[in-house]
């Protein structure tokens, strides 16, 4: 079909219709800057609490949350074995620095690649199974990783685990927190660009209707695996940061409870909402650390938040933040309650 590009150019201003003027953008940038500044100063807040250490783990969980979101939120696949990808990243990252003497940045690359490979194995299964059956396989996958693979003494030091040195220059908790923050920035950028480019749209399309996606020319096999690879790579990066943060890696860390926490925080944060996932993941990381004398609260609060999400706000925290995030990205500030982010989100809509 011949597109009249001259005419199309006349229509282009329509894209900016309803967008704020220069002053509107200034206010929004200032607000976004304030939020960013607040996040950035958190590790150096004064006081006796080990806030920097909390923020470090919070940032690692945010990366995991974004990783889970690629599978459950965007691609509509279930993942109850996500701790395995993080674990593979953590062990590979730890081994590549301690045993092979690779520099830290290279160990992150190794961890991302191994996380991606671990995920692609599940992705191949997901090409054939879906729904409950896939959920069971991912659960078994995570369990096998924790109980068997992470316990091979030759690779992982067996039950004792591996001790990890922090990268040079990043020995302090504050430095580690900032290191993690940089990678959170990278993960947020990737998620943003994913959903604004053809890969993300292909993944959305195959979630809603695979046959329709194929008939507009989308290679659904390729893009389903693409989602798994991206998710696994992000989880691997989180693992590579977790090892130096904790100064050690241990198979027992990556149990099923951790996988549940990962799914829980992503659902409570709100599938496909970067802002919601950021807040919820950081919360789920920091809350147990801050209240570790009162484990009972931790056990109650998490499920309570999930119940609230399922019953009242299917879009999670992202739904509650939406009026504000809409405004930040150039829309109007409106408290009008709209549908949750996901209305027909395939099998993974509600974990």
């Amino acid at each position: 079909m011949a597109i009249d590009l001259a005419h199309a150019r006349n229509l282009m201003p329509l894209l900016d219709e309803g967008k704020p003027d220069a002053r509107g953008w200034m206010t929004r940038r200032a607000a976004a800057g304030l939020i960013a500044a607040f996040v950035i100063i958190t590790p150096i807040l004064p006081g006796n609490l080990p806030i920097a250490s909390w923020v470090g783990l919070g940032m690692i969980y945010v990366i995991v949350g974004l990783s889970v979101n690629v599978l459950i939120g965007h691609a509509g696949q279930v993942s109850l074995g996500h701790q395995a990808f993080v674990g593979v990243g953590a062990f590979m990252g730890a081994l590549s620095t301690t045993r092979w003497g690779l520099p830290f940045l290279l160990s992150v690359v190794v961890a991302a690649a191994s996380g991606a490979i671990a995920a692609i194995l599940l992705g191949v299964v997901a090409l054939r199974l879906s729904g409950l059956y896939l959920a069971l396989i991912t659960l078994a996958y995570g369990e096998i990783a924790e109980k068997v693979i992470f316990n091979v003494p030759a690779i992982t030091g067996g039950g004792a685990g591996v001790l990890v040195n922090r990268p040079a220059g990043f020995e302090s908790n504050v430095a580690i927190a900032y290191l993690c923050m940089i990678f959170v920035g990278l993960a947020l950028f990737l998620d943003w660009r994913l959903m604004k480019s053809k890969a993300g749209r292909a993944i959305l399309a195959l979630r809603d209707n695979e046959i329709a996606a194929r008939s507009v020319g989308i290679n659904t096999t390729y893009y389903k695996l693409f989602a798994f690879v991206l998710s696994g790579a992000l989880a691997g990066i989180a693992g590579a940061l977790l090892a130096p943060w904790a100064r050690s890696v241990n198979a027992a860390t990556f149990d099923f409870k951790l996988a549940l926490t990962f799914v829980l925080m992503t659902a409570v944060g709100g599938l496909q909402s970067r802002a919601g996932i950021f807040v919820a993941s950081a919360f789920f990381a920091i809350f147990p650390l801050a209240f570790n004398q009162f484990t009972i609260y931790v056990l109650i609060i998490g499920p309570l938040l999930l119940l609230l999400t399922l019953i009242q706000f299917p879009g999670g925290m992202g739904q509650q933040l939406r009026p504000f995030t809409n405004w930040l990205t150039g829309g109007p500030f409106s408290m009008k309650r709209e549908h949750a982010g996901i209305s027909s989100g395939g099998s993974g809509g509600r974990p």
Partner: protein
Amino acid sequence: MAVLSVRDLSIRFGGLQALADVNMDVNEWEIVGLIGPNGAGKTTFFNCVMGVYTPTTGSVSYRETPITEMPTHERASLGIGRTFQNIGLVKSVSVMENMLVGQHLKARYSPLAGLFGLPSSFREEKVLKANALEILHFMGLLPYRDERVSSLPYGIQKLTEIAVVLSGDPDMLLLDEPTSGMRPEEAHQFGDLLLKLRSELNLTVLMIEHHVPLVVRVCDHVYCLNFGKLLAAGTPDEIRNHPEVVAAYLGTEE
């Protein structure tokens, strides 16, 4: 030269012979209707043409290229566009996003270039958006561009789906009940649209349709399926008066 040519197509699901020895030719710039009672195998036929199902026997070729074994997503790149009876749009996002989904094959940048935000991807995205606006303008759908698909009336969703398919530059359309959920006047207007698509965009159309006045007005040729077999083929007037077609739809007096 036939645009779409189907020879002796049969497909069997277990004990059910869904299609048996169906032959069809669709020629350049024709609008061809495919009618038949419920369960006659019309959508199954579309699924065979698009490669969703592999026929048990028989062959499908597109502009003399055999495509019987070709994966669905490659058929799209040959220029076949398809719409669905129950609407194949991503309902949770806006019309504009869907228009970009439809142009998947036109985005030449690699998925990784998009992921890492390389400048080439930004440039191309702009062109895709311009194309989308142009087609929405052509289809009269510009006012809906930022609406979430699930919040639109059914008839508008149907038209949006056609716009999305058009955005991929097809030269043949397979439409599955495009006027379902439309009022008679809307169906009539849809006929005008079909004729406009043919005259301005040089499209060839094969459509499953139940709306008889529309079929009679726009179709050059009509095929009638019943229980998986081709019952009759001919001009709309021939089909309308064909005794077996009338019997299949209305039953016979015994």
